């Protein structure tokens, strides 16, 4: 029995007209930013082996991935993330390419969300990866590209900057099991002060314990740095903080002071981030529209260790926001309908091709009579009908 033949799976939808235009508009705009900065486009397969996205590394739970098997019974997933495939691709196919490698992509990812919550299971992301470069120049370039990309679409964004290493260094000092460490990370991630305090109260007082207690509250502008400085208990954490400060100052120089927030409690779910992490938010969307960071250990998993940094932007979210703000192209009807009288069908096609080449949007009539052609043109909102017969005749349609 056919039951589901008129609907699309939950979490997916058809894109029509203005939605399509909006998405392509954003994709094109961002691709232009990326390619103007020397990033080259790649496309990875929509399906990949499950092994590429090992949950321990990717932070993507197995229940989140859409799975199937291939002809030989091997486990396949629909791409749940683009960074892992790009790491795979770089480590296997670009071994001999001079470094750094600059790549960008625009493609959907698929994630199986819990039902009836209004989340999309198919999301188009666009992003860049700068592979084979470490240090502040690379980090700054990627952040500056993120800023440039967002400025062109949603200028009122907030960019949040953190460092995965800060929490990790502190957490290593705690006398706890990995499970408790994960509980602590989750409590910091969700700014759950109550849960965090409950765990930390059980531990003997020490400098790392009190530092971790402060961590989720350490977010804001430049004032965060002097507040965080006393929490650094060794050279490594002090260096991390200094590095973040240096980045912040550089961004201030770029005129981004008002748009950048530092959050030392930014400990992301994606476990592959090792150093800086950043994300961007806008008023009109309840979740991050951009996520990124440095993942220096990821390429090593594909046996070609190299430092790398990148980000992904949620294209669908940006397109929806810009569409609502009327910043995306409108759907317009063709301007001209070309109708050939009986015997002039081929001439009509040729004529239409000519004026289309001159830059007009035109349709050719599929109707038998002039009356039908005119009423169709009127109904579709076209401005002109051109009749081809022995003589060419143009009528202009008034707006009703």
């Amino acid at each position: 029995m056919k039951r589901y033949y008129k609907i699309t799976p939950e979490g997916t939808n058809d894109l029509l007209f203005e939605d399509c235009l909006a998405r392509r508009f954003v994709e094109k705009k961002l691709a232009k930013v990326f390619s103007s900065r020397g990033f080259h486009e790649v496309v990875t397969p929509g399906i990949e082996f499950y092994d590429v996205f090992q949950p321990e590394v990717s932070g993507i739970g197995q229940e989140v991935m859409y799975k199937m098997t291939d002809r030989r019974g091997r486990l396949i997933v629909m791409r749940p993330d683009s960074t892992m495939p790009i790491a795979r691709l770089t480590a296997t196919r670009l071994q001999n390419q001079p470094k750094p490698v600059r790549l960008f992509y625009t493609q959907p990812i698929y994630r199986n969300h819990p039902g009836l919550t209004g989340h999309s299971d198919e999301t188009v992301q666009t992003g860049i990866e700068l592979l084979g470069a470490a240090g502040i120049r690379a980090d700054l370039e990627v952040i500056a590209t993120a800023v440039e990309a967002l400025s062109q679409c949603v200028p009122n964004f907030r960019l949040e900057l953190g460092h995965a290493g800060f929490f990790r260094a502190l957490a290593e000092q705690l006398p706890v099991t990995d499970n408790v460490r994960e509980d602590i990370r989750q409590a910091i991630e969700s700014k759950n002060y109550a849960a965090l305090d409950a765990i930390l109260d059980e531990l003997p007082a020490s400098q790392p314990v009190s530092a971790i207690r402060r961590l989720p509250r350490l977010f804001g502008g430049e004032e965060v740095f002097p507040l965080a400085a006393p929490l650094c208990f060794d050279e490594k954490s002090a260096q991390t903080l200094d590095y973040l400060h240096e980045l912040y100052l550089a961004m201030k120089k770029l005129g981004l002071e008002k748009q950048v927030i530092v959050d030392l409690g930014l400990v992301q779910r994606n476990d592959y981030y090792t150093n800086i992490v950043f994300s961007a938010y806008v008023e009109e969307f309840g979740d991050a529209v951009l996520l990124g960071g440095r993942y220096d250990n990821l390429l090593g998993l594909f046996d070609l260790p190299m430092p790398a940094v990148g980000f992904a932007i949620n294209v669908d979210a940006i397109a929806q926001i810009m569409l609502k703000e009327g910043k995306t192209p409108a759907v317009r009807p063709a301007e001209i309908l070309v109708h050939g009288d009986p015997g002039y069908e081929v001439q009509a096609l040729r004529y239409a091709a000519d004026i289309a080449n001159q830059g007009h949007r035109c349709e050719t009539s599929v109707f038998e009579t002039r009356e039908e052609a005119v009423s169709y043109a009127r109904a579709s909102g076209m401005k002109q009908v051109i009749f081809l017969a022995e003589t060419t005749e143009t009528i202009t349609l008034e707006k009703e």
Partner: protein
Amino acid sequence: MRPLRIALTKGRLEQKTISLLEAVGYDCSAVRDKGRKLILPVGNGKLEAVLAKAADVITYVEHGVCDLGVVGKDTILEYGGGFYEVLDLGFGKCQFALAGPKGKDFFGGYAAKTIASKYPNVARNYFERKAMDVRIIKIEGSVELAPLLGLADAIVDIVETGTTLKENGLEVIEPICDISARLIVNSASMKLRKTEIEALVEQMERAKEEKRA
């Protein structure tokens, strides 16, 4: 910019939150005699209160159409979601517990057990942590009925005083976790309106401490 919007779980948590907000100094008269309205101004329009069912509070906050929400930890554990859980408000206290017929050894024997619960996810997580295979049946109303009728071996439910359990010949087999009302915040709002939200959270925390004192 629109006023901060806070979603309140209708009923008891709503009343408690209102008195907390009043202790902070917000005028809540519009919420006190609300009629049938669902969006109400608080503190001369400084805040906007939205009244909703518990699970919907999470949904509204997660999608960012409400910046903050007050909801029980029970609902958070059952429905989950991505948001900040910034304050334990200290009221609406109770606990999740595994309960079953009095005097019966639940953990004995090797037969797989059947559990009835209004909170299937909480029940599933609890038994997964114990590495126990159980059959979970979702019940919408009085869960205590299920073991009495012989449908389930035990229940996972909220226990406040334990009176209902006792009157039906049930007892707590094992407490699962403590529950109380939480203040949750949408993650984007937290970044975009940090100063306002932090100020409000701090005020509420102080009012909570003062009430306790």
